[in-house]
C-alpha cells in the first residue's frame, strides 16, 4: 500500500521512510534481537554490520514481514506495518543469491510486481524497459531467466525490485556471493537503482570494505541492538563501545588506570586523553584503551630514559600495511601490541629495542 510521497523535504525529514522502534525478535538458540531502533530517511542508504549470528538477516526478514517479531514496531513512511503481511508493507527484500522465477522470462520476472498489483499493458512494458536500462541490461526482456550469468541474475533481481518502487529496499549481502569483477558491476547497479527513484535502502553486509561504497550511514548491530549508527568514517575512527571496536577488528586493547590528574596510565605509558573521550571514569578506576596500530609511535631507544621500552618480536603483513609486533613489559605483566610501520620515524627490525608511546588523538576509552 504505497502512500503518496511527502511533498517537501522538511516532511521527508519528519517522517523517515523506515523506522524501527525497539524491535525484538528471537531466533536460533541465542538471545536474538533484543532492542533494535533505527531511522532511515527517504533516499538514504544505511548499512547493517555486525558479527556473524547477531541477527542481521533476521532483522531484514522481520522488516520485510518474512520473520516473526516478538515486540516492537516497524513503520514505513510513518505508517505502522508491524501487523501487515509482506505484500502490503511497501518493502522489498532481496535475497543474498537472486531468486528469479524459472518459468518466467526476464521481462515477465520484472513485470511480476506490477502484474500482481493489477497493472497491464504499455505502462508495464515501459517500466520493465526503464528497470532493465537502470541495471544496464537493455533488450533482455525475452531471455529465459535460467539462461543468465551470475552477475546478470543479480541485476535482474535488482531491476525487478525497483520496478515495484517500494519505499524501502532491503538488500541481504548484495555483493558477498560475487567475484571481484562482478562486485563493481552489481555495486553500480545498486547505486543506479538508488538514482532511479530514491528508495530508502537497508543493506546487510559482513564486509567492512563495502560499507563506504554502499552506504551513507552504517549501523553496528551488536548484542541484539544498534550500538552505533553514524557515517562510515566516524564508525571506523570512533567506535562507541568496546564491542563495536572489537567487531571492527582493527582495534587493540590495553588496560589503563585513570590517574588523579586525569591522564591514563597503561603499558604504553601515560596517555593524555581528552576529558570528552575519558567520560565519567572516576579517579583510580580501570578502563580499557582501544587503539589502532597507527596510534603507536616508535622512537629510538635511549632518547627518553623514562619512556616504555618495547622489544620488536615479529612483523605482520596485512592488506592495510605491515605492522611490528611489540612485546611490552609492565610491572611483570607482558603484553603484545602492533605498531604500523608506515609513518614511523625510526627504522627497526626483529630483536631491536625501541621506545613506544601512544598517540592520544585516536585512542578510545571504554569503561570496564
Amino acid at each position, binding site marked *: 500500500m504505497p502512500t503518496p510521497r511527502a511533498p517537501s523535504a522538511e516532511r521527508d525529514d519528519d517522517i523517515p521512510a523506515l523506522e524501527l522502534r525497539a524491535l525484538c525478535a528471537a531466533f536460533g538458540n541465542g538471545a536474538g534481537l533484543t532492542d533494535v531502533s533505527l531511522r532511515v530517511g527517504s533516499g538514504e542508504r544505511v548499512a547493517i554490520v555486525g558479527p556473524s549470528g547477531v541477527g542481521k538477516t533476521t532483522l531484514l*526478514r522481520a522488516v*520485510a*514481514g*518474512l520473520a516473526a517479531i516478538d515486540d516492537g514496531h516497524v513503520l514505513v513512511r510513518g505508517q505502522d506495518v508491524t501487523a501487515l*503481511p*509482506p*505484500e502490503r508493507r511497501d*518493502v*522489498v*527484500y532481496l*535475497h543474498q543469491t537472486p*531468486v*528469479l*522465477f*524459472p*518459468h518466467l522470462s526476464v521481462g515477465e520476472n520484472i513485470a*511480476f*510486481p506490477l*502484474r*500482481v*498489483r493489477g497493472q497491464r499493458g504499455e505502462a508495464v512494458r515501459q517500466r520493465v524497459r526503464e528497470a532493465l536500462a537502470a541495471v544496464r541490461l537493455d533488450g533482455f526482456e525475452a531471455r*529465459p*531467466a*535460467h539462461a*543468465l550469468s551470475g552477475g546478470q*541474475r543479480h541485476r535482474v533481481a535488482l531491476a*525487478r*525490485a525497483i520496478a*515495484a518502487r517500494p519505499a524501502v529496499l532491503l538488500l541481504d549481502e548484495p555483493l558477498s556471493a560475487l567475484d571481484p569483477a562482478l562486485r563493481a558491476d552489481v555495486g553500480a547497479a545498486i547505486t543506479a537503482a538508488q538514482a532511479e527513484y530514491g528508495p530508502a535502502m537497508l543493506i546487510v553486509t559482513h564486509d567492512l570494505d563495502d560499507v563506504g561504497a554502499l552506504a551513507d550511514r552504517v549501523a553496528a548491530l551488536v548484542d541484539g541492538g544498534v550500538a552505533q549508527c553514524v557515517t562510515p568514517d566516524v564508525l571506523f575512527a570512533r567506535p562507541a563501545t568496546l564491542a563495536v571496536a572489537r567487531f571492527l577488528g582493527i582495534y587493540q586493547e590495553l588496560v589503563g588506570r585513570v590517574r588523579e590528574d586525569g591522564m591514563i596510565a597503561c603499558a604504553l605509558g601515560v596517555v593524555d586523553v581528552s576529558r570528552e573521550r575519558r567520560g565519567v571514569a572516576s579517579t583510580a578506576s580501570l578502563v580499557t584503551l582501544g587503539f589502532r596500530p597507527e596510534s603507536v609511535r616508535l622512537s629510538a631507544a635511549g632518547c627518553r630514559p623514562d619512556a616504555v621500552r618495547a622489544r620488536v618480536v615479529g612483523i605482520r603483513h596485512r592488506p592495510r600495511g605491515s605492522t611490528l609486533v611489540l612485546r611490552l613489559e609492565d610491572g611483570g605483566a607482558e603484553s603484545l601490541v602492533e605498531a604500523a610501520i608506515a609513518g614511523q620515524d625510526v627504522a627497526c627490525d626483529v630483536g631491536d629495542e625501541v621506545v613506544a608511546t601512544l598517540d592520544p588523538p585516536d585512542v578510545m576509552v571504554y569503561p570496564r
Partner: protein
Amino acid sequence: MTGSHLAAAVPRPGPGRIVRGVLLLALVASSLAPLVLLAIWSMSGRWLYPALLPTEYSAASWRALGAESLGPALVTSGALAAAAGLVGCVLALPLGRALARLRGWRRHVGAAAAFLPVAAPPLALGTGLQVVLLSVGLGGTVAGVLLAHLVPAVGYLSLFFLGTFTLFDERVEAEARTLGATPWQVWRHVLLPMLRGPIVEAVALGFLISWGQFALTLVVGGGAVRALPLEVFALVRAGQDRAAAVGALLLVVPPAIGLAALRWAAQRTAVAPA
C-alpha cells in the same frame, strides 16, 4: 606383459554382460508375454488343443464390448479413477506442503500417518472404511467407493508432494510475497506453474491407484459398484475367457498411458528457482 593395463581399460563382452542381457530379456518377456497372450486370446475365434495359435480369429468379443457389462464398467472405473486422481491431487498438494513444513518428530509422525493407508492391505482398509461409510449411508454407492479410493490415493500423493516440497526452494515464495503477491497470487502465478510437472505426475499416480483397486471397491461397493477389475474377475470365474481377456487388456491400457504421462512430466519437472 606390456600393455595389459591398456587392454583392461577397453570393455569386452564378458560373463557379466551376458548375464545382464539374459536378465533384461527375461524382464521384457515377463512384461510383454502376458499382454501378447491376452491380445491373442481376446481376438481368437477357434482355439483348440493342441494348436499353438488360434485356428480362427474373431472380433466378436471386442464388438460385444458395448453390449456386455465391460463397457459400463470401463466408464465407471474411468470416472472413479479420474475423480480420485484430480480430487486426490487437490487434497494432497496442500497436505504435502504442510508436511514439508513440519520439523523434527512432527514430520515423522505426519509422514507415518500419510504412509499408513498406503501400507495397509486394501482389504483391511476397506473393512474398516465400510463400517463408517455404511453408517453415513454411502455403502454400496459410487461416492462411497470414491471416498474409499481417496484414502490410499491422498496418503500416497501427500508423500509424493512432501518429497516435492522438500526439494522446493522456500525463498521463491518469500520473494514473491515481498514483491507484492498475496498468498493466492503466489499459488496462481508461482507455485502452480512451477509445479506443473509434479501435478501431472500426481494426477496420473492417483488415477492408477484407483484404477487397480479391487478389494476396496468390492468391500465398500458391496458388489453394487461394478468397476472394471470386479467385472474381469467375474468373467474369469464364469469361464468367459475371451471376454475376460478383453477386460484385462482394457485394464492395461490406462496404466500404459499413465506411465507415458509420468515420463513426459518427469522431463519437465523443475522445482528449483532459475
